[in-house]
């Protein structure tokens, strides 16, 4: 696909930097609602882009047909030259050794080894299981998405990388109703290499369908600020949403106030907290050897024993901030340039016991499983699928519609316990930043004990 001719095309002397990415692949998706298979689709996607840097200005042009590459490179150069000379601070990309590499994930069970019919039958079976649990399960939403593509990367510094990439994920959402309200729960799966994570989910789906019915009669929480225990799923979403995004250096590099707030060495929490982002744990959504700028991935500690120790960089932000590259330059597809994004973001295992957290709380909330979250750098919100009230050291009533919120910096300081039951969660969706979604990522955490967070309630 990337011929000698293309490699020669990017060797330009009249630019500071030039890269070409191209992808070619296929997508499969299935959507089931209740008893009906709403859609089964297959598609072929190919497209690429040329990105060029001249005197601090980026030109970026994307296209479908590789035959147009030569003229697209010229367009990108012309775009970048538009305001040449108007930017005082010239961007210097952090230097990286040029590489030639061909990579692919170690596939354990290829989704393509399972026929489309068998996949649809499996998903229908899951939907039927949920529907059969109770007459109050009025519907299900079952989704499955699979992407297989070959990515080609070549730049003006001599790097050439070909990556075979697999990513798939899905979810089963049982929906209950009593005629007045709707409740839902969610079972998700995802991987970059092993279809077996989508198999044998019957028990989990039954349990979640039953929970969705129970939620109809659950109490709504009392609103206010309370001690909260979050499970590994919500702990992962918290660290991704609340702290991971804040660590992405495009938000920091040119803002002196943010750089001061996120200064390496600042104390962010008590010594019990360690947070890292990595691409090197095999088998997860977010596993990668090289990022989309050809930078090798590595494990990056964001917080070590409570102290801020690194940011997440692409080459531009690492260059601007004079810091080491971390291999976080990622683009969701050929229509976008690589920006600092997370991979597998985790809170490291602690030494505490979940049971001791419960015993310690007089009145609080145990929030479980996540429907996602949102942050603006300082404030965050995430929504739990289900929750329990904790009264006098015991887990008591089931709660529904529980949203948690807080200030990132205060909440990190309010983490007073970290359990020893770490788990990584590969959800079926992905991370969104601007228009770039869904990017495959995963999160991990043990149970966390947060001394106070705001619960939205009546």
């Amino acid at each position, binding site marked *: 696909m990337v011929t000698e001719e293309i490699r020669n095309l990017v060797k330009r002397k009249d630019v500071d930097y030039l890269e070409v990415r191209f992808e070619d692949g296929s*997508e499969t*998706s299935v959507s089931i609602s209740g008893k*009906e298979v*709403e*859609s*089964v*689709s*297959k*598609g*072929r996607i*190919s497209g690429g882009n040329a990105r060029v840097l001249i005197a601090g*200005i*980026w*030109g*970026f042009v*994307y*296209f*479908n047909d590789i035959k147009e590459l030569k003229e697209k490179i010229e367009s*990108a150069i012309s*775009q*970048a030259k*538009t*305001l040449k000379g108007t930017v005082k601070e010239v961007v210097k990309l952090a230097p990286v050794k040029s590489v030639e590499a061909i990579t692919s994930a170690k596939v354990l069970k290829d989704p393509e080894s399972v026929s*489309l019919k068998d996949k649809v*039958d499996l998903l229908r079976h899951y939907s039927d299981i949920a529907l059969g649990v109770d007459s109050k399960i*009025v*519907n299900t939403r079952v989704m499955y998405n699979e992407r297989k593509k070959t990515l080609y990367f070549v730049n003006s510094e001599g790097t050439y990388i070909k990556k075979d990439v697999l990513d798939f994920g899905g979810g089963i959402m049982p*929906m209950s*109703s009593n005629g007045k*309200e709707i*409740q*839902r729960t969610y079972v998700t799966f995802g991987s970059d290499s092993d279809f077996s994570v989508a198999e044998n989910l019957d028990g989990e789906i039954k349990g979640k369908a039953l929970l969705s019915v129970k939620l109809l009669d659950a109490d709504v929480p009392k*609103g206010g*600020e309370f001690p909260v225990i979050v499970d590994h799923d919500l702990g992962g979403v918290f660290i991704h949403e609340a702290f991971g995004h804040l660590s992405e250096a495009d938000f920091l590099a*040119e*803002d*002196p*106030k*943010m750089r001061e*707030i996120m200064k390496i060495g600042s104390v962010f929490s008590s010594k019990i907290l360690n947070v890292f982002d990595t691409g090197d744990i095999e088998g997860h959504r977010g596993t990668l050897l090289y990022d989309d700028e050809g930078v090798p991935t590595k494990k990056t500690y964001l917080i070590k024993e409570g102290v801020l120790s690194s940011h997440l960089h692409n080459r531009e932000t690492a260059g601007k901030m004079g810091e080491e590259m971390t291999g976080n330059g990622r683009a969701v597809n050929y*229509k976008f*340039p690589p920006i600092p994004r997370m991979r597998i973001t985790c809170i490291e295992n602690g030494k505490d016991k979940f049971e001791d957290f419960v015993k310690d709380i007089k009145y609080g909330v145990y929030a479980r499983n996540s429907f996602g*979250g*949102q942050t*603006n*750098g*300082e*404030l965050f*919100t*995430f*929504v739990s699928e289900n929750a329990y009230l904790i009264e006098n050291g015991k887990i008591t009533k089931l709660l*529904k*519609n529980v*949203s948690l*919120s*807080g*200030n990132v910096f205060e909440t990190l300081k309010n983490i007073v316990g970290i359990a020893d039951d770490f788990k990584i969660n590969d959800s079926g969706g992905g991370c969104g930043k601007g228009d770039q979604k869904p990017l495959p990522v995963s999160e991990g955490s043990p149970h966390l004990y947060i001394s106070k967070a*705001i619960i*939205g*309630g009546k």
Partner: protein
Amino acid sequence: MEEKFLQIMKQRGLSGELMEVKVYKFSVNFENNRFKSIEEGETSGIAVRLKKNNKLGLSYSTNSEDIEGTVQHAYENADVSQEVNFDFAGPSNVPDTLCFDRDIENLDRNEIVNTGKENIDFIGSLREGVQGFFSMSKEIVSERILTTEGFSGKYNKSILSSQMGGVDAQEGNFLWVFGEIGRASKNLLDIGILREKIKKNFKDAEKNVKIESGKYTVIFTPFSVGYLLLPFQFAFNARNVVKGTSILKDKLNQEVFSKNLTIINDPLLPHGIATAAFDDEGVPSERKDLVFRGKPVNYLTDLFSANKLNLKPGNASRGLSTSPVPSSANILIEPGNEKLKDILKVKKGIIIESLMGVQMGNVNGGEVTGNIELGYLIENGEIAGRVKDAMISLNIMDALKDIVLSEETIWTDFLLSPYILIPNASISTKS
């Protein structure tokens, strides 16, 4: 291309639909108070839906020439898909629409860059140390739909949109201000509306105030009314009505909301960003009341759900790679009788500018719960300051029973809305 598709379908004895989309996008981006990048892209593709023994198959490709291969993929998928009873769209007269403006197509790179420079300087002047951002993009979309049942239609659309805002990240007090507008007409895109909003937001947030948990009067601005509409996206979706998961199932023509509330879905609104002559299944567009004086009166339909509920289709929306589903177009909320200045004379209330996390909550169930990212306390008609560390929680089925709407409206992107006052919403805060 049309002939080739029809010929292949005829040869194979299939009924089907071909969608062809071309998108050209050009955007100019300013970040951190400076010019950052220019991005340009041109993409195209085709999607085929077909029925094989009444089973529906779907496929798509970014190679628009590959009709044969795309039909074959859809044909293979149909075996494992479901039977449907609807027919693809037949011949019809598509209405005239105003959604293409040659001035947008011809808009020059330098003019956009200059608009950006002017606005990024404006944002920088509003507050010391603010990091401004601005982007403007023009998008030219061409969509064509063809069916074996005899529909053939094509439209071109041009959209000019702009986002601007700024962040002031002071330790312990981040302030994000943000706004977005879009039009299918260059002359109607009034960036002045955004500038005014951003300026007022920064001014009103000069100091923070503490509030207690409790019930408050809240006022949603036309820029935040979209959060109240999120549950409607589910509730009016006729597929959810078929499945029994819409909170408005069995509620048509009943008094559910305040008599002051009328919501219209209008895909024919001149110069709207969601304006189109036909929907993504080739059904001609029509204006439709969703709520009329408090009563839900229509659902949003596609061919599948319209067939099940014996209703007219016409609200299908899809991307190239996704299946059509009912979706709203331009939404108009009818204004009320109160002047905004009178609405703002509340003794104690909160103005909501933006929320976080609402879409992850139980919007299917009508819940609007989120962190107040930007909101202000009003006391005796005066802005007292910014409210932080607070969550709002309401359910539209209760909260919209008693509302007050302003005479004044603002057209943001897909939404033309007044200010909406809700007298009794739960607010939870830090102790």
